[in-house]
Every structure is written in C-alpha cells, then in structure tokens.
C-alpha cells in the first residue's frame, strides 16, 4: 500500500524541479479556486433566494391585510399583480383552512391556479402550525410541472375562529437562471485566474531557478575545458555549491598531480640503482656481468613502461584543464634545438594563438616532445610542426622531418611498445608507443604518413578546448 502511494512521489522527485514546483502550486491553487467557486456560488444563490422570499412574504402580508370574512365566507382582495388573473402564469396565491389533522382545504385561490390548488406538503403545514405568524418557505410544482418556490403563513382572520393558511408561490425559474449565469461567469473568471496563476508560478520558477541553470551551463563549460573554474556570481543558496564544485575541481587536479609526483619519485628511486648496476656490470666483463646487464636493461624497460602507463591512466580524467598549444610548441622547439644543437636541427613551428588543448600541459609536452625527439633523431636538418583546429572539438598536431622516412609496412610496429626500429639509434624506443598510448587516453589517435619534406609525418589528434 505504501509503495503504491510513494511511487508517484518518487517519480516526481526524479522529474524536473520546475515541474514539481509548478505542479505543487497548480494543485494547490486549483483546490482553492474550486472551493472559492463553490462558496461564491452558494452566497449568490442564498442572496437571490432571500430576495425572492422577501417578495413572496410581501404578497402573503398584503393578502392577509386585505382579506375579509363576511358571514363565514372568506373574501380575498383584488391583487395588483396582473399575473394572478392569468391562468398558469407562474404567480399564485391561495387561502386555505387547516383542520386539526393538518389537512388543507382551499377556501379561495388566485384565478391563475385555475382548477388546481397549490400542493402543500404536510410537513410544511406542520411547520406553519408550529410558528403561526411566521412564513415557511418550500419548493413545489404547479399543475404544469413548473418548479415553484412558495411561502405559507398561518394566521387568524377577524370573523373566523379557525386560523387560515395564507400562501403565495412564484415560478423560481428566475432565480435558477440568475444562479446559472452567475456560476458560468464565476467558472470562467476562476479558470482564467487559475491559468494566470500557474503561468505566473512557472515564470517565477524559471526566473527563480535561472542561477541553477547558469550553474549547470558553467559546470558544462568546465567539463569541456572551456573554463578552469566557476566564476559566476550565485545567490546565497547556490554560492556554497559553486564553491564546493570549484574545490572539487581543484582537488581532482591536486590528486592527479600528487599521483604523478609519487610515480616520479618511484622512478627516481628505481633508476639510480639501475644505473649503478648497469655501469658496474660493464666495468667487470664476464658472464655474470652480461646477465646482470641484460636483466637490468629489461627491468629498466619494464619500469619505464609501467610508470608511463600509470601516468597515462591518471590523465584524461581531470576536468577543467586547458593548455595553450603555441606556448608548448615554442618551449619544446627551443629545448629540442638545444638537445640537437650538435646536429644543427632547425625546427619551424606554426600554431594559431588561440588554439588550446583540452588536457594537461605535461601530457601535451609528453606527446609533442616524444614525436619531436623521434623527428630530431631521424631528420637531416629540418623539422616542421603544424598545429591546427579540426572539426568539432579536435585539434591536430603534425610533426614532419626530412629524414629517411618509414616504409608503410613498418609503420604499425613503431606504435607497439618497446619497438625500436634501429637498435643503433639513441632513445628508448618507447617514444611513439607512448604518444599512441597518451593520445588514446584522451580519445585521440596517431597517424603516420609520408611528409613532403621527404621523411616521416606524424599526426596526432587530440581534444581541443573551445575558446
């Protein structure tokens, strides 16, 4: 039972806030408006009936005042209302005698009643007898079936000992029609009022909740890397939430940073002992030294790979990061030219000023740095980097060199981990595999092609932060 009761509320809870508020206000105002409608209608009807009954009372009193008894015979006065003379006109009067049992015997009646009398229910007669001199009102019908409203009063007439029942009745069509018209107008007005109220509530809710929608938009901007944090001004109720969201974003970046630091510390801790072992083994040639060297090499490769994977896994989950591409390309070009100073490598980079990568600076450095290092190793003299926005939310960084290039059938291998195409070339051999892994972590990819400079062209697709 409870579950059936709670179900609609649960559904309501999940549905929109606007709907909830509007529904609540709507249901409440409909109930109040319906009650108000009934109340007004009732008051109006009551007033109309009272006015009607005042008229009947007046007819009864004038009838009473003018009625004379002569020799036991009751004579009625002439009525001013012409309807009293037209048969079945809807206006009737009747003077009747009442015996001890309450049976009504008409003494004299209006001409309009023709050959019928006014139906007088016994309980009306009983009430009239309990309150002589006071009119009792009741509903009845005439012989044509029209609904009448009537009044009856028991009074004594000079010249006659037994009291006489004076009655006047009138077609109540006029009150009913007025009441119907009033109800129609009231219903119309209240429906209009209700609609207006709901509209007003809807507008109020939309305007009142506007900061909430603003907050949602801003959070979306942060998630898509368009903004680093929430900067909007929010009302007192939302400001703490915005603050908490900002703290969450900062915390998220913090956690990633800390993870990376741990990983870096681990790398440092492992690599120095490995360097010592390698050097020591080389200085004392022999079988043991060979084994140690081979195994240390393998350990180094594993450590490197696993550390990079750990770093890659920590990435791409951060939110709100954006990195200026041109700046990273500039830094890396300068660094790379210094690294390959001996060789005299010229790096020419081109990127729009407002191009931003949606992700961490370190990751873009890692991606471009590794491709560049590879290009620096293989090029003759020149490396060209081009960064440009792609359709939707992507950008492309292309690195080309004028080296020997790479045959198409071998391109798949370079992206595999640990692949080293030329054992004699320096470098860990992991470079492009890491680039591939990182690009994938960001949902992008790496493509290899021939460059018009003569060598290899590496194109990486990465998410772009909107400007």
């Amino acid at each position, binding site marked *: 039972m409870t579950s059936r009761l709670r179900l609609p509320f649960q559904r309501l809870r999940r549905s929109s806030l606007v709907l909830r508020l509007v529904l609540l206000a709507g249901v409440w105002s409909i109930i109040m408006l319906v009650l108000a409608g009934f109340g007004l209608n009732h008051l109006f009807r009551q007033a109309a009936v009272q006015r009607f009954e005042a008229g009947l009372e007046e007819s009864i009193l004038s009838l009473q005042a003018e009625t004379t008894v002569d020799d036991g015979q009751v004579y009625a006065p002439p009525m001013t209302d012409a309807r009293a003379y037209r048969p079945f006109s809807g206006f009737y009067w009747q003077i009747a005698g009442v015996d001890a049992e309450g049976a009504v015997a008409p003494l004299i009646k209006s001409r309009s009643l023709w050959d019928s009398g006014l139906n007088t229910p016994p309980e009306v007669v009983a009430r009239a007898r309990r309150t002589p001199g006071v009119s009792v009102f009741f509903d009845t019908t005439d012989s044509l079936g029209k609904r009448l409203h009537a009044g009856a009063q028991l009074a004594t007439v000079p010249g006659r000992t037994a009291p006489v029942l004076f009655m006047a009745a009138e077609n109540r069509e006029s009150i009913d029609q007025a009441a119907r018209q009033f109800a129609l107008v009231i219903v119309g007005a209240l429906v209009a009022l209700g609609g207006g109220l709901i509209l007003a509530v809807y507008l109020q809710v939309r305007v009142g909740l506007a900061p909430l929608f603003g907050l949602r938009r801003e959070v979306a901007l942060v998630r898509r890397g368009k903004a680093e944090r929430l900067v909007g001004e929010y009302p007192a109720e939302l400001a703490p939430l915005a603050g908490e969201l900002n703290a969450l974003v900062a915390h998220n970046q913090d956690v990633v940073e800390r993870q990376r630091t741990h990983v870096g510390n681990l790398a440092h801790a492992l690599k120095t002992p490995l360097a*010592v072992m390698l050097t020591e083994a080389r*200085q004392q040639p022999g079988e043991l030294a060979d084994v140690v060297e081979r195994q240390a090499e393998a350990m180094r490769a594993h450590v490197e790979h696993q550390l990079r994977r750990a770093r890659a896994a920590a990435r791409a989950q951060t939110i709100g990061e954006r990195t200026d591409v041109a700046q990273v390309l*500039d830094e890396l070009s300068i*660094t790379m030219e210094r*690294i390959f100073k*001996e060789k005299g*490598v010229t790096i020419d980079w081109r990127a729009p000023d407002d191009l931003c990568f949606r992700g961490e600076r*370190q990751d873009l450095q*890692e991606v471009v740095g*590794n491709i560049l290092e590879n290009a620096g190793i293989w090029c003759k003299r020149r490396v060209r980097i081009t960064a440009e926005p792609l359709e939707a939310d992507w950008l492309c960084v292309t690195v080309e060199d004028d080296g020997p290039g790479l045959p198409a059938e071998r391109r798949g291998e370079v992206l595999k981990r640990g692949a080293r195409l030329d054992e004699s070339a320096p470098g860990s051999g992991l470079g492009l595999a890491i680039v591939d892994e990182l690009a994938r972590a960001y949902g992008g990819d790496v493509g290899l092609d021939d460059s018009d400079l003569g060598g290899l062209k590496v194109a990486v697709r990465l998410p772009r932060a909107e400007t």
Partner: protein
Amino acid sequence: MRILLVEDDPDLSRQLKLALGDAGYAVDHAADGEEGHFLGETEPYDAVVLDLGLPKMDGVSVLERWRRENVATPVLILTARDNWSQKVAGFDAGADDYLTKPFHTEELLARLRALVRRSAGHASPNLSCGGLRLDPRAARASVNGEPLRLTSLEYRLLHYMMLHQGRVISRTELVEHLYDQDFDRDSNTIEVFIGRVRKKIGPDRIETVRGLGYRIMPLEGESEG
C-alpha cells in the same frame, strides 16, 4: 680538463668519478646542491655534470643560481625524471644537455666531449641594441639581462636584424637570409616570426615600415650599450 660532478648517490658517484678519471678529466665531486653550487661558482670548470634530485638544493635551483650569477660553464643534467616538462624546465634553467637515468657511461662521456668542444668555440663580439643583447657564440639573447628563449629561426631573424640595426630590411631580404636553399620560401611566414619575436622582446623594438619592411631600433630613452 676539469669537471664538476654533483651527484648524491655514492655508488653512482664512485663509478662516474672512475669513468671520468679514466677518460682523462680531473674530477671534483659534490654530494649535495649547496656544495655543488659553491664549487661551481668559485672554481673554473670546463663542464658540470649535475644531478637534478639533490639534497639541500635541487639541481634546477643550483643551475638557475649559476646562470643568474653569470656562471657560463656548460652543464649536462642527469635526471631520473624523463618527462618533457622536466626537460623543458632544465633547459629553461640554462642546461646545455641532458641525460636520462639509467644511462651508459659511454654515452655520458660522448655527450660531455661534445659539450666541451662546443663551448670552446671562438668568441665573437656581442651585439646589442638598447637593452637587447645577443651573444652569437652561445647563440643566446637577452632583454635587460633576462634571457630570451628563441627557436633557431627566431634567433636567426633577430641576429640578422641586429647586425643591420637601424636599417629597414625588406621581407624578401629576411626570407633570403633566414632560410636555406631547400626551405619552402613564403614571405608571409616572416610576419608570423616577427610577431613571435615581438612577443618575446617587447612589441615596440621592431618597427614595421609600411610597404618596405622592418627595422629594429633601441627603445626611446635607452642608451646604446
């Protein structure tokens, strides 16, 4: 040839001292950043092998302090942290080469030889234009003592303009002197490079002479150095 080795790991230090000694270098060793900094500042070394993870003061700070104090000794960084942000930071601090741990001693020796040979190149007079200075020997430039970070094309552009300072240089002339024969020449790219160089040296030092080209001038109020 005298080398300063700054490395905190005792085993690695011993090995490197041995290997460097065998290769004919005189080696001084410092086991922490402060001692290393002091030695590098006071003794005339031909090259420094500097580990980045050091007690007391880390390698990047040591290097930055040397460069601020105009110690121009070539420095080779040893680092276990082989991500690119570390490399960029190291080169920004003024390093001349880097080597990632673990490494082969032969590679270290080869790099060191190249470093010493490179830095021993003959000196040529520095160029200056107001607060802008350029050292063709080290291929380095600075503005008001702040080192500039330039790519080789940007450096070449600045070098050429400073050699001909005060004269209007056309785009075509710049293209011809900047690029090799086999570079695709596109004079529009000159604007890109001028823009980038302006960003680094300040917007007003290079003047655009409409329809003719560019001219580099000292800023108003700057004395010719």
